[in-house]
């Protein structure tokens, strides 16, 4: 894997760097709907031109709200949003020139597909011939050249989706917002559309801000992923970094499968720390997000980085024993659920490569992992 962009693990890019070609910039943005709770606590975010940025987070974390503020449908309670280095808090939505794809597509039901596509052009008073040409080209782009005279209701979900994307692109904005645009599609179609949207993005070079709460979608599509929780950006990184180097326990738990072990720190040295586990035993981990010696921490280990060790292997920094609780056969690999240091949900993935050691439910086996694969993060009560 190659990492194209590196970023601060906390995701709060320095806002003071001035106009550096960022397409969108949120600066200390806060948002409250009711005057009592902050839905967006302090959003600082730079989105580069041409970037595909995905906002990922659990329901209610403020993704849509951020998008709505960017599109101009919700005012920011505090802070400033910049579009191409211009502050846009006072610019009404129709003058922002941002294309938007809504979750339920919002195709105008009383217009044909062609009229829907012509809408953004006709409100810009473009000549009729030019509109017709652009509409035809847009339909071509989403592979629906013969569907111009249909009504949205006469299209399948996937076709409506494409029309919605085409409509958001037809007036050639350089920023497109998509709020869970594939949420209503079935899995297969969703994967196909993911590919097509990505393809369009690569071809046109527009900036895309894409909201989803499907992490697989985020990982496959995005240049960078912005993980939200409770109105705070938890981490802003490339997909691989997000998966392999989560900055805190929330991200570690939210992205991919994760094993958690709680304990307290006994020693910190040179980026590594020693943690005594609550369930017994002691391990060495990368000190990523820890408070200091004596404080509590949560360890994060990906299931595929844990190995079963024979008595002779001793090049692993960390060794523990676990009791096998459950085996799930998944073809290419086997999921082993075991109890490790008091955690009954500890998962190990065994590759099904013919050399796997045979384990049975009830066995007590030795497991281990490298210190580099184990990250000590902020404590959460498991």
């Amino acid at each position, binding site marked *: 894997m190659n990492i194209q962009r590196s970023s601060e693990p906390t995701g709060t890019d320095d806002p003071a760097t001035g106009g550096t070609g960022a397409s969108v910039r949120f600066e200390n943005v806060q948002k409250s709907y009711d005057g009592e709770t902050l839905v967006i606590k302090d959003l600082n975010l730079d989105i580069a031109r041409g970037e595909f940025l995905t906002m990922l987070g659990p329901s209610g974390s403020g993704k849509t709200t951020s998008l709505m503020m960017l599109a101009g449908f919700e005012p920011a309670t505090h802070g400033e949003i910049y579009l191409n280095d211009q502050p846009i808090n006072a610019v009404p939505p129709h003058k922002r020139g941002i294309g938007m794809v809504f979750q339920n597509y919002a195709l105008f039901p009383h217009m044909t597909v062609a009229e829907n596509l012509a*809408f953004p052009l006709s409100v810009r008073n473009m000549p009729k011939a030019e509109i017709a040409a652009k509409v035809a080209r847009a339909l071509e782009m989403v592979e629906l050249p013969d569907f111009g005279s249909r009504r949205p209701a006469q299209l399948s979900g996937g076709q409506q989706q494409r029309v919605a994307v085409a409509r958001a692109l037809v007036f050639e904005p350089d920023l497109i917002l998509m709020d869970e645009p594939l949420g209503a599609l079935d899995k297969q179609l969703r994967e196909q559309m993911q590919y097509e949207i990505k393809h369009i993005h690569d071809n046109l070079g527009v900036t895309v801000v894409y909201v989803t709460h499907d992490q697989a979608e985020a990982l496959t599509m995005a240049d960078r992923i912005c993980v939200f929780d409770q109105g705070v950006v938890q981490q802003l990184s490339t997909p691989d970094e997000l998966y392999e180097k989560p900055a805190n326990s929330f991200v570690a738990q939210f992205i991919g499968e994760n094993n958690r072990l709680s304990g307290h720190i006994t020693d910190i040295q040179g980026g590594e720390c020693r943690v005594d586990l609550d369930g017994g035993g002691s391990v060495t981990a990368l000190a990523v997000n820890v408070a200091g010696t004596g404080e509590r921490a949560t360890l994060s280990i990906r299931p595929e980085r844990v190995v079963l060790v024979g008595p002779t292997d001793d090049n692993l920094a960390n060794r523990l024993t676990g009791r096998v609780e459950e085996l799930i056969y998944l073809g290419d690999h086997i999921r082993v659920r075991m109890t490790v240091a008091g955690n009954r949900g500890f998962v190990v993935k065994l590759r099904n490569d013919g050399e796997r050691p045979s384990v049975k439910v009830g066995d007590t086996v030795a497991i281990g992992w490298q210190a580099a694969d184990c990250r000590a993060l902020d404590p959460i009560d498991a």
Partner: protein
Amino acid sequence: MPTATDTVAAGDLGPLTTGDGTPLKTALARATRRARLKALFLVAPLLLFVIVTFAVPIGQMLYLSIYNPVFSDNMPRLSSWLRAHDVTEVPGEDAFKALVLDLTEARANRTHAQVGTRINYERSGATSLFKSTARKIKKIKGPPYKDQLLALNEEWGELHLWTVMSRAAAPHTAAFYAQALDLSYDAEGDIVRAPENRRIYGHLFLRTLLLSALVAGLCLILGYPAAHLLASLPLKYSNLLMVLVLLPFWTSLLVRTTSWITLLQSQGVLNDMLVSVGILSDDGRLELMYNQWGTVIAMTHIMLPFMILPLYSVMKTVPKDFVRAARSLGAGPVTAFLRVYLPQTVPGIGAGVLLVFIISVGYYITPALVGGSSGQLISNQIAFHMLQSLNWGLAAALGALLLGGVILLYWLYDRLVGVDNMKLG
């Protein structure tokens, strides 16, 4: 797919059949018949109720507009004579004999006044003619009837009277419709337009349609923003607002109308206020009651919920995203409203306007109370003929024309907008 090809193959061979060879259509009809019968059974009480209390009385009422047997029943001899002869001049002794015999009998049965009234519909003065003649009919003891009757009252020698009676002799008549359309028969029995001073109904129909359209228009203008507010507010506020919208339904119509009178009459609250502020002079008080404005204002108020409710129910289903999408695509607020929001509320507008218009066209109490003479609608005339003049035939004819007009408008609406497009709730 196997099923698809099967179907196509079977389709090529002829009509589809089920396993035992019954045609599929027959089998389907048989299978659904039971369900339909059951459904019919469940709605039967309502159906019966509607037929007994609505369809039948209305049908009978409408029949009265073309059927009036008062004359033919109570004046049998004269009626059969008149039916057998063409009346082109005042008839001779035969007819007068029949008239005298019938009148004698009618007096004995005390029906002569009804008969007179029936003739009076088309010839004023006939009631008193029949009454006075019947009172003295015993003086006529034998022929010559014609001369004696003419001696009693010369009016019996007028051709117009005879043509009117000749038309009344047939129990089925178009006379009421003619009258409702401001037409009348001249002395020769031809249909002509009624004299200028007796043309009331055409004017009244026109006024009814115009005022109803005005009320519907005002309701739309006032109700549209209210419905939109209602549909876009959070639930806790919109519920309260909805209660306010529905409040008029909970207060008596009379109370509301009376309060409008208190408010708007020339010595009323509004005028007093305007005078005391100095906007109006004391003798320049606005006349807002007992004229057309009174009718329009009070009816607009009464009809408003009928506009807001269908609009609201449509607006509720228009997702916010549509307008947002329009805005994000570059449409200003006005364009987004006109090109995206408004078209989607057309079903509600259609339903509301049609509802308000149709109710207004038949409205009666409010114009009667606050309309003065210039704010009377056709239904007030219908009520007058039902209750005061007791000319039910004319009332029925007016009612039938009103119904026909409304159906025509509904048909037009269906052709132009499409009734499927309408959403009432």
